[in-house]
């Protein structure tokens, strides 16, 4: 599987097939047991990764704002500026007013949004997202989908996006990769051509429905193969 700069790739597959594991490998957090992950010579390639883990993974002792500011502070930004950017990013995930809340006072979806804000705040060049919107209501989810897509269109960073929603995958990604379990492997890759996706009424178009059906079949096939 190749991943070019600026790709938007969605990863689908049955539960437990290794999507989270693959994401961790891409991020370099665990070594692959077989095969290899190669990066372009560009030394900065592995820098500037944003990762939304499947679980919120917040520091319980820090407020929402400090959690979001973490990557900036780790990169050496001064605290005041990092805080300002974190507050801004929290507002974008509709958590204005919750800057000083500790994680245990947040609802499940709110924690996940803090985690998303943290991944976006660094304007990463490679964004790895593990079911980031699963815990969100559909309206927030749609808006964040659109936000993400706009951001991506503007800045053309690379995205690998794990989701269980076929609709979401087709709506967001140029490339939809379907994985199968035991052993975890890529079984199918579908392309959603840009000319289709860039129409404003894509979501209600026939081509969208067709793509969805196709992905759906690929997924069903992947599960039977297991």
């Amino acid at each position, binding site marked *: 599987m190749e991943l070019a700069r600026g790709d938007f790739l969605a990863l689908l597959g049955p539960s437990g097939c290794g999507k989270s594991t693959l994401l961790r490998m891409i991020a370099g957090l665990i070594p692959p047991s077989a095969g290899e992950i190669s990066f372009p010579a560009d030394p900065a390639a592995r*820098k500037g990764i944003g*990762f939304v*883990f499947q679980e919120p*993974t917040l520091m319980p*002792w820090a407020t929402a704002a400090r959690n979001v500011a*973490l990557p900036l*502070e*780790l990169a050496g930004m001064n605290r005041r500026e990092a805080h300002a950017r974190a507050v801004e990013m929290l507002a974008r995930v509709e958590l204005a007013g919750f800057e000083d809340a*500790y*994680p245990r006072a947040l609802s499940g979806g709110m924690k996940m949004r803090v985690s998303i804000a943290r991944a976006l705040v660094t304007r990463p060049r490679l964004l790895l997202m593990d079911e980031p919107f699963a815990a969100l209501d559909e309206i927030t989810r749609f808006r964040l989908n659109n936000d993400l897509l706009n951001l991506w269109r503007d800045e053309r960073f690379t995205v690998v996006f794990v989701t269980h929603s076929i609709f979401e995958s087709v709506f967001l990604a140029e490339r939809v990769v379907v994985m199968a379990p035991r052993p975890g492997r890529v079984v199918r890759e579908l392309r959603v051509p840009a000319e289709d996706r860039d129409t404003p009424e894509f979501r209600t178009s026939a081509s969208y429905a067709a793509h969805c059906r196709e992905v759906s079949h690929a997924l069903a096939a992947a599960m039977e193969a297991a």
Partner: protein
Amino acid sequence: MISRAQALRWFAPAVLGFLALAAWEWAVWAQGIPSYILPGPVQIAQTLARDWDSLSVSLLVTVQITFAALAVAASLGLLLAILFAQSRVIEMSLFPYAVVLQVTPIVAIAPLIIIWVDDVRAALLICAWIVAFFPILSNTTVGLQSTDRNLLDLFRLYGASRWQVLWRLKLPSAMPYFLAGLRISGGLALIGAIVAEFVAGTGGTASGLAYRILESGYQLQIPRMFAALVLVSGTGIAIFMALSLLSHLLLRRWHESADTGEHR
């Protein structure tokens, strides 16, 4: 409802404490136990008040050594734990020496320390430190190892330096363990200061509570001896409560152990 529970929380211990003291006083009175065997609390209180001038000086000496030892134990224990957290090899290489320090009976090596260290005050401090540092070291080591693996991954991902991982991740999550160790060490530092003084038997004007206990024992001033013991216990409780409060203040926003307890 809340205020009642709160009140009970302070009221019950007070009542229980009062009852315990009353029972003690009554037992001493009813059994006619002479004060040279076991004085009653009233007499101890009177002695405490009467001898406050000399006892308070000793109390101050002991408290000073205790706090100095605790401060050194906390900082050195923490530093060592951090060092051990750097790699298993370091931990396995050095932990045995920490254990040796812990289990070496202070009573046995206090004389050696007093030989090697000229200043008696410094010798006492070292003794108290040896007694107090281990719980902090041991607990903090466990705490540093208990860091959430996902958060560790997150930090690695964002290229956090060793120092940042330590300072912003491992130390905060080791905090509950560290504070639990500190609460144990608080008492031990006091013990260490007292035992060392017992063994060393330093006296003179700058002598601490241990010497007062010994002295009163030799002179058969038993109420005075108990008064000094009461001061020791009181100091211990005060240290423990102060450290518990500290722990509560530091953890209450995020850690279960410092919850208000409504769930229990």
